[in-house]
C-alpha cells in the first residue's frame, strides 16, 4: 500500500478511537444491565458479585487492548496494578510476620509472657532505611551484608548436599551403561539412554569452560561445539513445553470471560 498521508492517518486514528469507544460503552452497558438484573433477583449480594466480575472483565479486556496498541486505559491499569501489589505485599508482611513473629513475642500474646529483649530487633531493623540516604547508605550495608553472609554460608552447604548426598546430582550421574542378565552383558535401550545422558552432561559442561583456549584444544573444541548443539536441543524442549504453559494462562482468562462473566459456555 502507498504510504498513508497525514490526513489518512488522522482519519484512521479517529476511526480507531470510535471503535474503542463503542466497545467500551458496550462493555459498560452490559455490566450495568447485568448488575441491575442480579440485584433484582438476589438483592445486594447479587449486585456486588456481578459488579466484581464486571470489574474483572474490564481489567482483562483493558489489558488485552494493548495487543492492538499501547493506550491510556492500559497505562492506567498498569499503575493500579503496581499500587495494589505493593499495598497488599506490605500489608501481608505486617500481618503475617511482624505482628505474630515479632510484636506478639515482644508484648506477649495468648499466654506468652512479654519479652522486651525483642525490642533490640529495631536496631538492625532501622538500618535497612539508610538505603534511602545517599550519605549514610553505608549504615544499611551492615544488615544487608549480614544477610548476604548468612545466605552465602547456606549456599555453601546447599551445594554440597545437592551434589553429594545419596540422591545427589553427582552421585546420580553414575549410571550403568551395560546391563548384566543371565550371565551375559547387554546394551539395552536404557543403557543407550544413560550413555546419551553422560555424553550430553560432559559436552554441555565443557561449553562453559571459560579460561581455556577452545581453538587450540582439539577435545575441548569438539565437545564445546557439540555442547552448544545439545544446549539448543535443551532450549527447543523448553520452548515446546512453554507453549503449553502460556496457552494455559490464556485459556484461564477465557474461562473467566466466557464462563464467569458472560455465562455462555458450559
Amino acid at each position, binding site marked *: 500500500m502507498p504510504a498513508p498521508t497525514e490526513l489518512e492517518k488522522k482519519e484512521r486514528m479517529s476511526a480507531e478511537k470510535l471503535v474503542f469507544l463503542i466497545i467500551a460503552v458496550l462493555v459498560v452497558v452490559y455490566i450495568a444491565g447485568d448488575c441491575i438484573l442480579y440485584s433484582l433477583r438476589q438483592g445486594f449480594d447479587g449486585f456486588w458479585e456481578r459488579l466484581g466480575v464486571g470489574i474483572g472483565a474490564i481489567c482483562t479486556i483493558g489489558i488485552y487492548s494493548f495487543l492492538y496498541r*499501547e493506550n491510556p486505559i492500559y*497505562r492506567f491499569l498498569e499503575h493500579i496494578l503496581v499500587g495494589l501489589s505493593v499495598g497488599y505485599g506490605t500489608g501481608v508482611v505486617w500481618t503475617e510476620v511482624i505482628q505474630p513473629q515479632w510484636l506478639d513475642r515482644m508484648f506477649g500474646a495468648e499466654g506468652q509472657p512479654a519479652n522486651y529483649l525483642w525490642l533490640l530487633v529495631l536496631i538492625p531493623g532501622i538500618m535497612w532505611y539508610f538505603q534511602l540516604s545517599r550519605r549514610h547508605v553505608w549504615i544499611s550495608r551492615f544488615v544487608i551484608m549480614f544477610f548476604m553472609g548468612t545466605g552465602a554460608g547456606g549456599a555453601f552447604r546447599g551445594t*554440597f548436599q545437592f551434589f553429594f*548426598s545419596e540422591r545427589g546430582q553427582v552421585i546420580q550421574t553414575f549410571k550403568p*551403561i551395560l546391563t548384566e542378565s543371565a550371565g551375559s552383558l547387554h546394551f539395552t535401550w536404557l543403557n543407550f539412554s544413560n550413555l546419551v545422558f*553422560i555424553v550430553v552432561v560432559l559436552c554441555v559442561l565443557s561449553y562453559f*569452560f571459560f579460561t581455556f583456549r577452545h581453538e587450540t584444544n582439539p577435545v575441548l573444541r569438539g565437545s564445546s561445539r557439540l555442547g552448544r548443539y545439545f544446549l539448543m536441543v535443551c532450549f527447543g524442549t523448553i*520452548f515446546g513445553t512453554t507453549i503449553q504453559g502460556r496457552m494455559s494462562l490464556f485459556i484461564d482468562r477465557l474461562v473467566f470471560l466466557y464462563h464467569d462473566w458472560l455465562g455462555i459456555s458450559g
Partner: protein
Amino acid sequence: MHATYTMLILTAVFSAPIVLYILRARAGKGEIYIRPIAGLSAIDEAVGRATEMGRPVLYSTGLSYLSIEGLCAVAILSHVARLAAKYDLRIIVPVNSYLLYPIAEEAVREAYADVGKLDLFKAEDVIFIPGQFPYAAGVVGIMHRERVAATFFFGYFAAESLILAEAGSQVGAIQVAGTPDILQIPFFITACDYTIIGEEFYAATAYLTHEPTMIGSLRGQDIGKMILATLTILLLVFGLLMAFAPKTFFSNWLLDLLLR
C-alpha cells in the same frame, strides 16, 4: 544434616582453587585468558545504532535483586551507561528491587560523571517498579512511549523475558540479552539479536570489568568443573568395570567412598 567426611574433603577440594586463583589474580600473578563472548561486541553496535537514530536506549535488570547476579547486571550497566553518556544518549533503567535501585542509580550517575557529562544525567530515568508483572507492564509501556532504539536485558529474568523482548522487537529495537537463568534463554534467543547464554553472563562481566577477583574466580570455577567432569568419567569407568567384574574390589568402591 551434617557433612559426611567425604563432603568435608570435597569442600576443601572445590573451594581451594577458587580462593587460590582469586588471590593470585589480585596479586597480579599469571595472566588468565578468558575466551571471547559472542554477544559482547553487539553492545557497542547497539549503542552505535541508537546514536544514529537519536533515540534512547533501555537497560533492564529484570527481576535481579541484591545478589551477585544483580551486581553483575549493574557492572554491565556501568559499561553501557558510560557508552551512552559518551554519545550523549539517554539511558532508561527500570529496576525491580528496592535494594538494587539505589545501587543502579549510583552506577548510572557515576558513568555520566566519568565521561564528564553529569549535567546530562537524569535521576528520574532510573525507575523503580516493584512486582513481576507490574514491572513487565511498566517496562513495555516505556518502550512503546519512548520508542527506544536499543534494549539490553541483563540480570535475572523470569516469565517477563518474552514480554519485554517481544515489545522490544515490535518497536524495532536492536536487542542484546544475557541471563544466568537457563529457562529464559530460548525466548531471548528467538526474540533478541544477540544472547549471552547462562554462565557466560558472569564471564561477560569479568571480560568487561577486568576485575581480577572475577577473573581469578572464573579460573577456579573451571578447575572445579574439571574435577566434576573427571568424577563423572571415573564413575562411568567404574560402572563399566562393575559390569564386567561384579562384586569384586571395584564394585561400588568409588560410590561408597563418595557417600561415606
